């Protein structure tokens, strides 16, 4: 039987030790009328049959080297260096549990500490935790920190409409039971000044995205001062590759910085597992959820690492905890840590520059096409909005069916008034030939 090593002799000896004669007698506490139901699950496959079945399912998806993709919107097709997968496949990392026993877990603990350090440095903040489920849940937890910081006396959260729609949706799901009011994003067109007008003494958190969901880099100079003058906290949602180039959110005065870490060497994998990073200024360290690793010493004075500030967590604080989170995205944080180590100081900047230049090359060539227009009011990093001559869904079907191109994100799905608008992402993975092919195909789509 799969992965069960018992021989008949083992079973007999063990049953005898327990004082019963068959396995079924182990379950007499289960109500007899419900005991041992049938299971309508297909018969077991051998390993090779299972592999074939999964290969058939995998190849039924349009993904892999034969497709060029220009889809981003919160998940990006960046290169994951070979080293990452080799390290991730070490059983010492991926078959370990949460490092509750530090003497047996120094590898996981030190890697997590390094991850926290890199995220703190990248975002320009004082400290980071071991990670959350993804960027969206990191943001929902940032709302919790702000509410906790104000001891429940402020319940308003101002959301820029330029924050990823799914992040805003997740924050609302998380906080549907505690009376939090989310404002600012309803019309989808509020400017930064409109949002600042909403600030009052009931505002717990002011949240923006940098670069925003549409790829634009808004000018946040002076924002933190205004938010802080109202006594609210500022959360900046960001994306780590862009920070290879951009001024870190910490330097913009953010109190909390969160975002999706998938770009750091984690495969697209149809949306998960990813990892949310979460960084704060020192004032808020004791209010954040999730695991945090700290440096310490062992009994012999050797440097060691251990999970710390544990009394915040659900297993100790129970109903008084501010979050129920117990897992982090340990293995994904390890991937991110290896990615940032490999890329390093110069490499991360280089990836960001390559993305930037390629995206601008694509945008310029698309702008030149008849019928297409690129929004260029604000500087952008590697994502931009194209207004198309036809519905985006139609264009994407044409790109896919005729050219093996996965087109950009159809913005009407979340912003009904953004008719014919496509959000295009370009990364270091898109060659010039792919970009040229996209431009040509878009042109053809106009006439098709």
């Amino acid at each position, binding site marked *: 039987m799969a992965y069960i090593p018992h021989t008949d002799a083992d079973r007999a000896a063990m049953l005898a030790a327990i004082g019963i004669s068959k396995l079924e007698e182990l379950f007499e506490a289960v109500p007899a009328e419900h005991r041992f139901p049938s299971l309508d699950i297909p018969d077991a496959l051998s390993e090779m049959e299972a592999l074939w079945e*999964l290969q058939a399912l995998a190849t039924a998806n349009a993904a892999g080297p034969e497709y060029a993709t220009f889809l981003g919107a919160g998940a990006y097709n960046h290169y994951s260096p070979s080293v990452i997968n080799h390290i991730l496949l070490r059983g010492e990392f991926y078959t370990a549990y949460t490092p509750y026993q530090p*003497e047996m877990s120094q590898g996981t603990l030190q890697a997590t500490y390094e991850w926290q350090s890199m995220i703190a440095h990248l975002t320009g903040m004082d400290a980071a935790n071991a990670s959350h489920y993804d960027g969206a849940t990191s943001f929902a937890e940032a709302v919790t920190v702000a509410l906790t910081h104000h001891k429940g006396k402020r319940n308003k959260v101002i959301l820029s409409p330029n924050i990823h729609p799914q992040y805003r949706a997740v924050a609302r799901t998380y906080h549907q039971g505690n009376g939090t009011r989310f404002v600012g994003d309803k019309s989808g067109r509020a400017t930064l000044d409109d949002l600042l007008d909403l600030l009052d003494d009931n505002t717990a958190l002011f949240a923006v995205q940098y670069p925003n969901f549409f790829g634009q880099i808004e000018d946040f100079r002076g924002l933190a001062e205004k938010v802080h003058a109202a006594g609210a906290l500022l959360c900046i949602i960001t994306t780590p590759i862009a920070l290879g180039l951009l001024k870190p959110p910490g330097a913009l005065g953010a109190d909390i910085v969160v975002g999706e870490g998938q770009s750091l060497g984690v495969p697209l994998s149809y949306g998960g597992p990813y990892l949310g990073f979460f960084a704060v200024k020192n004032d808020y360290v004791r209010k954040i959820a999730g695991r945090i690793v700290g440096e*310490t010493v062992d009994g012999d004075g050797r440097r060691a690492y251990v999970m710390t*500030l544990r009394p915040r967590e659900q297993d100790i604080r129970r109903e008084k905890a501010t979050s129920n989170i117990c897992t982090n995205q340990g293995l994904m944080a390890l991937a991110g840590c290896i990615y940032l180590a490999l890329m390093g100081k110069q490499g991360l900047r280089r990836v960001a520059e390559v993305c930037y230049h390629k995206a601008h090359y694509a945008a310029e060539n698309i702008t030149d096409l008849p019928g297409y227009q690129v929004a260029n009011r604000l500087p952008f990093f590697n994502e931009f909005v194209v207004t198309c001559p036809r519905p985006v869904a139609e264009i994407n079907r044409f790109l896919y069916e005729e050219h093996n191109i996965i087109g950009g994100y159809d913005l009407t799905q979340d912003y009904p008034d953004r008719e014919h608008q496509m959000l295009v992402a370009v990364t270091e993975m898109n060659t010039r030939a792919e970009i040229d092919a996209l431009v040509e195909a878009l042109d053809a789509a106009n006439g098709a």
Partner: protein
Amino acid sequence: MTTQTVQAKVLEPLIYELSSSGRKADTLLPKLDVPQAEPLPDHLLRDSLDLPEVSELDVVRHFVRLSQLNYAIDKGFYPLGSCTMKYNPKIDEDTARLPGFAQLHPLQAPETAQGALALMYTLQKWLSEISGFAGCSLQPAAGAQGEYAGILMIRAYHLERGDTKRTKILVPDSAHGTNPATSAMAGYTVVNLPSDERGDVDLAALRAAADETVAGMMITVPSTLGVFDENIKEIIKIVHDCGGLMYMDGANMNAMLGVVKPGELGFDVMHYNLHKTFSTPHGGGGPGSGPVAVNEKLLPFLPGPIVAIVEESSFEDGAPLYGFVMPEKSIGRLKAFHGNFGMHVRAYTYIALHGAEGLKAISRHAVLNANYVRVRLADTYTVPYNRMCGHEFVLEGRFEGVPDIHALDISKRLMDYGIHPPTNYFPLIVPEALLIEPTESESKETLDRFIAAMHAIAQEARETPDLLHSAPHTMPVSRVDEVYAAKNLMLCCQVPSAE
């Protein structure tokens, strides 16, 4: 400090400490093949970036050496109660990395992701079948998120009926900390229920608490004490009779496959931990995956989107068209995109490799192993609820006449025997608790070695207690000072700024 003392005091330098200004891993990026764009305005650019500067070989050696400081299932026995540390089949890692899955973007048109959607649809069906429920959402990223989804659904169910007086969730005192934390997150007051002397829920206390202000009850089956509550049907009836709904924490589902279906017992909602029961690996603390399954009553409230057949095939035996749908009264989205899909692939592979008979065998052998160890240790250790257990059981890590020995000492000493300690100090209601879960993948020989180690430690506790107090002796570090870490918070290494 001289270099030599630094080396003696540091197991492995931080990656930042290996850094040399100007060093880089240069093979990773191609040359720029497009013209350079106008640079961004200066005020948007950062002036320094503190990341390490190391070679690829530096990185490989550093992380390989770190891995060697870890213990893991692949190294040895890991009887960590409530965590189901079973063998993680290698094939699961291969299937999850197939390019058609790994390189698939979550926002692609569903027509271009039919393989992934078919997999998710089938997994939803299998998880519903195994638990006896009507439907399932794969959205939750972990068990705790599954719990939160469940409690939000219970809340939405009552509110939808205009029933606004329900403010409480009942939680047994043996529960995982996530249960009360989840209830509080959803705005509920938590009512803790005591356990009786057999480890079951105290029925009198339950009856006294069950009134029209109860929204529901969260209970783990088998309980975290490792026992099947003998009154489970009665408990469910009491809560239903007062208008509450029943949530089953599925953390211990490894004892239930093909043994009993929670939906048939009368539960309204449960979550799975795919990283426990279906062996998607724990990854050193995640990623997990916590699908939530419900009966007909809660079906419209499932977190979404979920996968459905949106168009039947027009020809016989043809594949239908799968797509995402948002359940009619959904509590909403719990994370971006569609859940931890990579974990869905691993769980699907695992279930396919087992089939119905294999799944049944899992629970029968997990429970056999736990009871075997329980019986063999009950002569040396106090087993407070010494009756037939599920896939785990709890014992007391203390001995009469040896007041200085605690569960923690026994745990640390086990490391010297090459075994990961059981969960210690949980459940909270057992003094010096050690919660032991062997799982079905361990052989009788492994269990016998563990039993022998536990017996030896019991003897050491009496004869050479210092051996336990100063344990572990064979790990990369000796006992780690948790208090020092909390008092001298260092969460981020400081980099000597070069710029």
